[in-house]
C-alpha cells in the first residue's frame, strides 16, 4: 500500500516535472539542438534587443541611414511626459483650457526639439547610432563593418544576394514556426525543417502530449551572421533576438539564438532549419 502510494506520488511528481519542462515554450524549447556551427559569439547582451524596423526595411526604401529618426528613442521619455501632461491638462481642465495648454506645449516642444536636432545634425554624423545602440552593440558580429552601416552584410555576402529580403523571409518563418509549434502542427514544421531537426521538434511536441500553448513574440530582430557554401550545400546562420513571452501572463524575457539554415546548392529545396544554437 505504502509502496503504491510512493509510486503514485513519484508518478504524479514526474508528470509535474514534464509539464514544467514543456512550459519552456518556444520552438526548440529554448535549448540548443540540431546542427551547431561556428558562428561569431557576440558580447553578452546588456540590454534587450529592440525591433529593427529601419534595419530590416528593404534597402531600396532607405538607401542612406538617417540620423534624425534614430533620435526618436532619445526624445520619447520627454515626449511621453509632455503628452501625459497634455492629457492630464485636458482631463482636468476640460476642452477649452486643455486645448490651449496643448497648443502652448506643442509650440514649446517643437522649438526645443528642432534646436536639439539641429545641434545633433551639426555634430559629426553617426547614422543609426542611437536607434541601433542596444541592438548594434549586442548583435553586430565582430567581423562586421561599423554599426552605422545600414547593410553590414552586403560586403561579406555574394553579389545578388538580397540580405534584406532573406532576413524578412527568415523572420516570417520564425514566427510561423513558433505558431506551428504552439498548435502542434507537425506538417507545417516538417515543411521548414531537416529530417533530424524535425525529429527533435516532434519529440518536444510529443512530450507535452500535443497540448496547445501560446508563444507571444513581443519584438523580433534578425541578423545574418554567416553565409557559406560547403560542398553541395549552402549554409546560412541567422541570429534572432528580441523578447518573448513563453507563458501567458508571464513577464517577457530576452532571447537570442542562431538558427542554422541549410539549402541544397542544386536548388532542390528551399532553406530548411537544421539547428538552433542558444546565445545566452
Amino acid at each position, binding site marked *: 500500500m505504502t509502496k503504491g502510494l510512493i509510486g503514485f506520488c513519484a508518478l504524479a511528481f514526474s508528470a509535474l516535472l514534464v509539464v514544467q519542462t514543456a512550459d519552456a515554450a518556444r520552438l526548440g524549447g529554448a535549448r540548443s539542438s540540431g546542427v551547431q556551427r561556428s558562428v561569431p559569439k557576440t558580447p553578452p547582451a546588456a540590454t534587450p534587443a529592440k525591433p529593427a524596423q529601419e534595419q530590416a526595411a*528593404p534597402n531600396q526604401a532607405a538607401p542612406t541611414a538617417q540620423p534624425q529618426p534614430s533620435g526618436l528613442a532619445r526624445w520619447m521619455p520627454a515626449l*511621453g511626459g509632455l503628452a501625459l501632461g*497634455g492629457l492630464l491638462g485636458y482631463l482636468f481642465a476640460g476642452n477649452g483650457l486643455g486645448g490651449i495648454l496643448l497648443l502652448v506645449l506643442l509650440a514649446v516642444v517643437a522649438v526645443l526639439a528642432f534646436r536639439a536636432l539641429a545641434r545633433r545634425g551639426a555634430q559629426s554624423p553617426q547614422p543609426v547610432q542611437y536607434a541601433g545602440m542596444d541592438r548594434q552593440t549586442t548583435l553586430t558580429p565582430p567581423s562586421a563593418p561599423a554599426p552605422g552601416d545600414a547593410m553590414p552584410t552586403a560586403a561579406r555576402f555574394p553579389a545578388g544576394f538580397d540580405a534584406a529580403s532573406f532576413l524578412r523571409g527568415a523572420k516570417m518563418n520564425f514566427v510561423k514556426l513558433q505558431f506551428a509549434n504552439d498548435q502542434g502542427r507537425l506538417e507545417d514544421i516538417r515543411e521548414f525543417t531537416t529530417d533530424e531537426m524535425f525529429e527533435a521538434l516532434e519529440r518536444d511536441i510529443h512530450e507535452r502530449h500535443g497540448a496547445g500553448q501560446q508563444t507571444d513574440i513581443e519584438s523580433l530582430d534578425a541578423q545574418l551572421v554567416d553565409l557559406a557554401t560547403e560542398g553541395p550545400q549552402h549554409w546560412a546562420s541567422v541570429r534572432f533576438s528580441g523578447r*518573448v513571452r513563453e507563458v501567458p501572463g508571464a513577464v517577457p524575457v530576452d532571447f537570442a539564438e542562431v538558427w542554422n539554415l541549410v539549402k541544397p546548392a542544386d536548388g532542390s529545396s528551399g532553406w530548411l532549419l537544421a539547428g538552433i544554437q542558444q546565445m545566452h
Partner: protein
Amino acid sequence: MKDQTDFGYERVPEADKARRVGAVFDRVAERYDLMNDLMSLGLHRLWKAFAISVARPRPGERILDVATGSADLAAALARRVMPGGEVWLTDINRRMLERGRDRVLDEGLLAPAVQCDGERLPFATGHFDCVTVAFGLRNMTHKDRALAEMTRVLKPGGRLVILEFSKVWKPLERAYDFYSFRVLPWLGRQVAGDAAAYRYLAESIRMHPDQASLAAMLESAGLSRVEVFNLAAGVVAVHRGYRI
C-alpha cells in the same frame, strides 16, 4: 468643375489627386514617425490607443486597416485579435506599406499586406468584423466611395472606425491656424526638409468634413448608430458606425 477635387487648398483634376498625395508620402516616408511625434507632441499615440479602444478588437476577429501607413494601429490590433484573428494591412503607397509590413514583423506578428486603393477594395462583401482607417480618409479623392467600400466589406454587425483630424473647438481656431500654417510647415522644412508636404497636411485638414458632416457621410454610406468622439478639443475625432 465637377472633375476637380481638393488637394489642400488647390483644385486639381480628380485623376491627379492620388498621384500627388502619393508623392507627398514618398517624400515624407522616412521621417513620418518622427514628424508625427513632433507635430502632435506624442499625442497621436494616445489618439490611436483611444481609436483602438473604440474599435474593441476581440480574439479571432478579422480586421482591415485601410491606409495603414507605418502600421501603428494595425500592430496594436494584430496583437489583440490573437489567437485566431487576423489584421490585413492596405495602403495605396508602396513605401508606406513596406514600412508598415516590416514594423508588424518586427513586433513578431504576421499580417498580410495588400497595396490597393481605399476606394476599390479587393475584398469580398461582408468579409471583415471591423474596418479601421487612421489619418487616411482625408487623403482619398472620393471619400464617399471609400466609405461605401469600407461599409461593403463589413459583415453585418461589423463596425467602421475612423480616426481623423476634424474641426477644432471655435475659440481655439486662431491659435490652431497659427500652429498649422506657421509652425507646421517650418517644422516640416527643418526636420523632413519639405515645407510643402506639411502645408498640404494643414490645408487638407481644413478641407476635410467636420464632425457632423462626416457623421452624415457615414450614414449615407449605410452605417447605423454613428457616434463621434472628440479628442483634444476637436483637433481629431473618432467616428464609429455599424453595418446593421
